[in-house]
């Protein structure tokens, strides 16, 4: 009897241990639940062709509804999976090569390139003629290219800019004129010198930037070599320059040490940042891309209790270096059974002049969407102001933003015009699928180095170890 108990116990232990190895497969078991669209579309009537679209943002649902208007015999089944903790990527990875794969997938900047480089996206190069017609900004479609094949297009262009506080600029630099400020902050040496001025004139109570992580993107975007050259990990001088600059900012107290997307970072936007002792602190500038204005800066410019607001006190300039941040690309899965329809959907969303104009100028209101599909949520409307990827559309609509809410927010400056000026100089040719993971791996060692707990050499070793851990086939010296 005892022996039997022992055997059963061992078996039980084994089966518990076995669970450990099941982890990589685990997401697959969750996938079926996710394929049920959370927001059910109008019930398919008659012989509607079903198009499955997966996304991590509910933005594209708006376009999907508009698509159903022009394509009445299509039922777009829209599945939205958040990517807060990587759920979207995990679920998408788990369905690759199975029957559950969607027809069209939305891909975010951080992982679009790894899909474009993979075998899973279809060649949709015949859409390029529309891209040429609409004069899409080159970086928008270059991101969706691998080995000369077009696999994804985006409706947005997401050039970055520098937002600064007008009142503080007047105080420290004697002017809040964007032209003058751009001259003062035109490159990173100037930006660092200006940080010193801000610190001195404010008595250390205003920080040039919320965190040194804010400007990492700028340096990465202006490298001359990609991270991986011929299968070998490569560090461009721009990366060294970034680390130097970050160290200067940390050591001299030019940054508020408020990590991106965390409380302190947002508090700086509405002037409620306080250090631990309760002293008020200010942040002079934020590096944000097109979407950062309506989705990040604008909503956070008033504190939660409404007591402090910085609305109207902002201005935008190109900043020290051109860069781009984020963006949503659409690709077609190779296994799709509706190739032509899926391509048409991508064309409609990303390369259709009328749709892009409607999207950017606020035509897609609640009433508009509900008239097509009464079941769309009440907050589905798309407010005017998203920066689209087509130069043709941008040029036609820029003037319409002269009096927009965003222009008032920026003290009368037309942000759309500002982004239009910045967009052509952005370059995304160096983007690779492994970028995100390689750059992420640098964060922790870099922070330890900035704190002074490790040396520069130790930082590189730690980073290389971390990269090696995630990329077993990469040559790392």
């Amino acid at each position, binding site marked *: 009897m005892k022996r039997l108990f022992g055997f059963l116990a061992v078996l039980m232990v084994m089966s518990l241990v076995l*669970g*450990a190895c099941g*982890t990589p497969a685990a997401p697959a078991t969750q996938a079926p639940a996710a394929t049920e669209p959370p927001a059910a579309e109008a019930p398919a009537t008659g012989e509607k062709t079903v198009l499955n679209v997966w996304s991590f943002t509910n933005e594209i649902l708006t376009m999907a509804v508009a698509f159903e208007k022009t394509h009445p015999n299509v039922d777009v089944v829209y599945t939205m999976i958040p990517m807060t903790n990587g759920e979207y990527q995990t679920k998408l990875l788990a369905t690759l090569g199975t029957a559950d794969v969607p027809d069209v997938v939305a891909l975010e900047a951080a992982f679009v390139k790894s899909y474009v480089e993979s075998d899973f996206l279809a060649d949709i190069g015949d859409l390029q003629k529309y891209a040429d017609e609409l004069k899409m900004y080159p970086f928008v479609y270059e991101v969706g290219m691998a080995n000369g094949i077009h696999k994804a297009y985006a409706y947005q262009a997401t050039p970055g800019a520098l937002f600064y506080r007008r009142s503080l600029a007047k105080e420290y630099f004697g002017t809040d004129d964007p032209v003058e400020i751009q001259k003062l902050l035109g490159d990173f040496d100037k930006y660092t010198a200006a940080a010193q001025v801000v610190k001195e004139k404010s008595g250390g109570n205003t920080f040039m930037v919320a965190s040194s992580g804010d400007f990492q993107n700028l340096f990465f975007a202006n490298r001359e070599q990609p991270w991986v050259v011929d299968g070998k990990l490569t560090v461009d001088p721009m990366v060294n320059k970034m680390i130097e600059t970050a160290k200067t900012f940390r050591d001299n107290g030019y940054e508020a040490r408020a990590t991106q997307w965390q*409380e302190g970072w947002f508090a700086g936007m509405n002037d409620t940042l306080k250090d*631990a002792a309760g002293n008020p602190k200010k942040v002079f500038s934020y590096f944000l891309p097109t979407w950062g204005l309506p989705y990040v800066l604008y909503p956070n410019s008033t504190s939660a209790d409404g007591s402090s607001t910085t609305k109207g006190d902002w201005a935008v300039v190109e900043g020290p270096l051109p860069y781009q941040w984020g963006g949503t690309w659409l690709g077609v899965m190779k296994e799709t059974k509706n190739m032509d329809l899926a391509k048409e959907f991508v064309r409609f969303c990303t390369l259709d002049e009328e749709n892009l104009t409607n999207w950017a100028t606020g035509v897609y209101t609640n009433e508009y969407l509900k008239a097509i599909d009464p079941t769309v949520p009440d907050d589905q409307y798309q407010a005017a102001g998203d920066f689209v990827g087509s130069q043709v559309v941008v040029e036609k609509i820029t003037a319409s933003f002269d009096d927009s809410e965003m222009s008032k927010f920026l003290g009368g400056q037309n942000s759309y015009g500002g982004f239009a000026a910045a967009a052509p100089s952005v370059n995304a040719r160096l983007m690779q699928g*492994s970028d995100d993971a390689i750059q992420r791996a640098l964060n*922790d060692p870099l*922070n330890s180095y900035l*704190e002074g707990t490790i040396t520069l050499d130790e930082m590189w070793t*730690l980073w290389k170890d971390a990269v090696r851990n995630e990329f077993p086939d990469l040559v790392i010296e």
Partner: protein
Amino acid sequence: MKKKIRHDQYGYLFVAPFIIGFLIFGLYPVVNTIVLSFTDRTLMSSTWSFIGLKNFQNLFADSTFVTAITNTWELWLMNFIPQMVIAFLLAIWFTNNRLKLKGVGVWRMIFYMPNLMMASAVAALFFSLFSFYGPVNQVLVRSGFLPEAIDFIRKPAIMRGLVVFIQWWMWFGQTTILLMAAMTAISPSLYEAALVDGAGTFQMFRMITLPLIKPVLIYILVTSLVGGMQMFDIPYLLTDGRGSPGNSILTNTINMYMKFHSSKGHIGAASSVGLVVFLMTSVVALLIFFLLREKHDQPAKAER
């Protein structure tokens, strides 16, 4: 005789659901993991090949993997030992007939409560408490304990301490309840007899309680070991999901997940981590059985 044989067949029918479930959800993933661990398969490419022991060579040449193994052991031991001490203490107090504590049920519930909270909620809670602009810094600086704010999230010792504390805090209630259940199952007559023989409290604990709750102890030890070796949610969610700061809370499973989740989805390499962890855990679990096996095997057999 023939009838008996037929009856036996029903047995197979009854165990079939378990066997089928085990084969599909237990054995198949394991076999698949073992196979995968000898390949260079990635999720982003449809072609792959067998590469022998290359994955394992990479693993052991890689300091990150060794760090993850040591971290996992340290984090588990540091929370398991205090957990057992506190759980024993509480279980003894709660079941002691002479102390007759009031409100045992209430305390038991309170101690078990943290276990019901979602790991993500707990991690988010502690993350915001200890962030640079968070309440812990505010309280400590304003009351004069600290001259200026500390970036707790970036301090390896503090983050490890937090992981250990959270794991302890979430699981000591569960262990207490298991131990209490085992202790109350012991017949009071044994203690009465011991009292008559003049035994002290410690002697009774050593000679009666411990030997009789041994099966439960083994169960706790092994389940906790398995759970500890797979520690994932709290350390993953507490910082950046990469075991930062300085790989201080990088565990085996985070390491495996990072390989799976890298931009190419290296499932071959990730499986090799899983396999090593599986072997390690199995060996240690069997060692525990061996060390804590019934020493008086002969009388036990006679008993049967």
